[in-house]
């Protein structure tokens, strides 16, 4: 299926509704890197977000007042470190709608969370002849682990195609599902197109036709709108802290207790054990069973500060702000001759806008935009199967977050026009 280039967006009622949303957050001063660089227009938050001062302060505070190895010492400083780590888990679980916070396993990020499910649940439950389904829009992190698992277990690896406007083709998905389907993995939001996938509909389809587990890549949803794991209808949900104002190197995997309890450990070592004998070892309880070694307690504390900050704004307002920016950006960019936008209309996407400009290669575009202080991503966005279907080697991608405002869109448009000036106009 070749995806359609979509540069025209009719002024239908859905699009008009966007005028109800206002890009009225004024939080840029809270972000030291942005506050210190007034000319910088950071439009690459889908790759990683900037960090507010409260997060940086929380990291420093942990190291200055609570640093010790959690779960290890009998002394009170270690107890304090343990308590900080424990409370961070509870706070982040609350933010993501997880009542049972022991079901939130800290990981390095989404990638590790997905690999954990593939390596543990997958290796234990998938066998020859079984089937694993992913979608053509998935990030390599939610594609390759399943492909490798399928190869290891002799299972069939099946890729769900997309509709021409860059959504999961539900009819195609339905056709892929059967009683041999063991795992269905998909992204809540596409990192390359911004498509928000209909998670409830996907879950209903999968439950109806299979006994498969549902694994959701939440890297691009947890930062951008309210997510409540307990009512999502999926079995596993992985996310990254650094995309939601938290530090790099911390994220999580949320799973259903009965599944996590049955799963074998992912990595082994300290902290995840109960008793170690010469001939056997028993495992610690959740969440420790999946957290071998010294945990990244400081970054967990930093991430807890990040979700506290996001809750302070309110996730509904975060979404409204991005939606207003997206609507504005989409209209402004669509008006540029030779510019093609990929993916669904503004109302059905998060703050991610993927585009190409005539025959100007996205890398050249990104370099010229850099000259205007505008940071965008150019490349395949770790989604080569999707790029192949778009029939482009790369796209340019602008992505928005709480600290962006209309001046960033102005700078983006000015930079694109500058690229047009340097390259001239050669339609493709």
């Amino acid at each position: 299926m070749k995806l359609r280039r979509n540069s025209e967006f009719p002024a239908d009622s859905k699009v008009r509704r966007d005028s109800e949303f206002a890009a009225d957050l004024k939080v840029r001063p809270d972000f030291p890197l942005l506050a210190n660089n007034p000319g910088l227009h950071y439009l690459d938050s889908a790759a990683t977000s900037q960090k507010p001062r409260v997060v940086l302060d929380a990291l420093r505070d942990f190291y200055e007042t609570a640093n010790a190895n959690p779960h290890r010492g009998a002394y009170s400083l270690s107890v304090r470190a343990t308590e900080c780590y424990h409370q961070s888990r509870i706070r982040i679980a609350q933010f993501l709608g997880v009542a049972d916070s022991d079901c939130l396993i800290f990981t390095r990020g989404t990638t590790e969370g997905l690999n954990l499910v593939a390596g543990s649940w997958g290796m234990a439950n998938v066998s020859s002849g079984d089937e694993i389904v992913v979608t053509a829009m998935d990030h390599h992190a939610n594609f390759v682990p399943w492909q490798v698992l399928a190869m290891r277990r002799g299972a069939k690896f099946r890729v769900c195609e997309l509709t021409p406007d860059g959504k999961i083709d539900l009819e195609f998905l339905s056709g892929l599902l059967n009683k041999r389907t063991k795992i269905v993995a998909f992204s809540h939001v596409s990192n390359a197109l911004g498509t928000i996938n209909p998670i409830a509909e996907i879950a209903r389809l999968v439950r109806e036709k299979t006994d498969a587990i549902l694994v959701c890549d939440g890297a691009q949803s947890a930062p951008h709108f309210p997510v409540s794991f307990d009512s999502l209808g999926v079995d596993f949900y992985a996310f990254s802290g650094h995309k939601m104002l938290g530090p790099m190197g911390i994220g999580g995997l949320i799973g259903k207790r009965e599944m996590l309890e049955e799963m074998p450990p992912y990595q082994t070592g300290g902290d995840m054990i109960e008793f170690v004998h010469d001939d056997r070892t028993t495992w610690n309880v959740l969440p420790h069973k999946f957290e071998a070694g010294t945990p990244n307690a400081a970054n967990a504390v930093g991430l807890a500060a990040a979700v506290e900050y996001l809750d302070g704004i309110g996730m509904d307002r975060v979404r409204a702000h991005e939606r207003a920016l997206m609507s504005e950006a989409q209209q402004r960019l669509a008006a540029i001759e030779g510019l093609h936008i990929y993916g669904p209309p503004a109302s059905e996407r998060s703050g991610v806008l993927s585009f190409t400009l005539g025959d100007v290669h996205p890398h050249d575009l990104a370099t010229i935009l850099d000259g205007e202080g505008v940071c965008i991503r150019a490349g395949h966005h770790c989604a080569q199967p999707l790029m192949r279907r778009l029939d482009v080697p790369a796209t340019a991608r602008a992505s928005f977050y709480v600290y962006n405002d209309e001046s960033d869109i102005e700078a983006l448009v000015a930079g694109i026009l500058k690229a047009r000036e340097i390259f001239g106009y050669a339609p493709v």
Partner: protein
Amino acid sequence: MPQPRSAAEIGALYQEMILDHYRRPRNKGTLEKADASVEMKNPLCGDEIGLQVAFDGDCVCDLRFSGRGCSISQASASMMTQLVKGKTTEEIDAIRKQFRELMLGNASAADDPQLGQLRALSGVSRFPARVKCALLAWNALESALGERS
């Protein structure tokens, strides 16, 4: 915090000659009979190049490139094919090393007449993220020459 690029640096990068080679690449296509064929990819950006070389004794008598990529990678490949055609592998090796110096920002390389039009790419050295684009074709050529020896 690195400063954004100046307009002058951007201008130096995207010279008319580079855009001309990007839009009208020379020696693009395939050879009917090649002595060495190489395919290379830049996994970071998905750009790819195919290079075919025909030899006459110690000389590169003909070569063609294929694939797609940014203006820097395409212009570099196009100019490279023009410059090395008819040269001995030893001469090409010297040019290749000198081009690498140019990409590292070595000022003397920018004045070296043996680099010919390739000197138009001197602005790339100010953009470390783009040096790999300019070197892609040259890495393919090095591999093709190695394949033969």
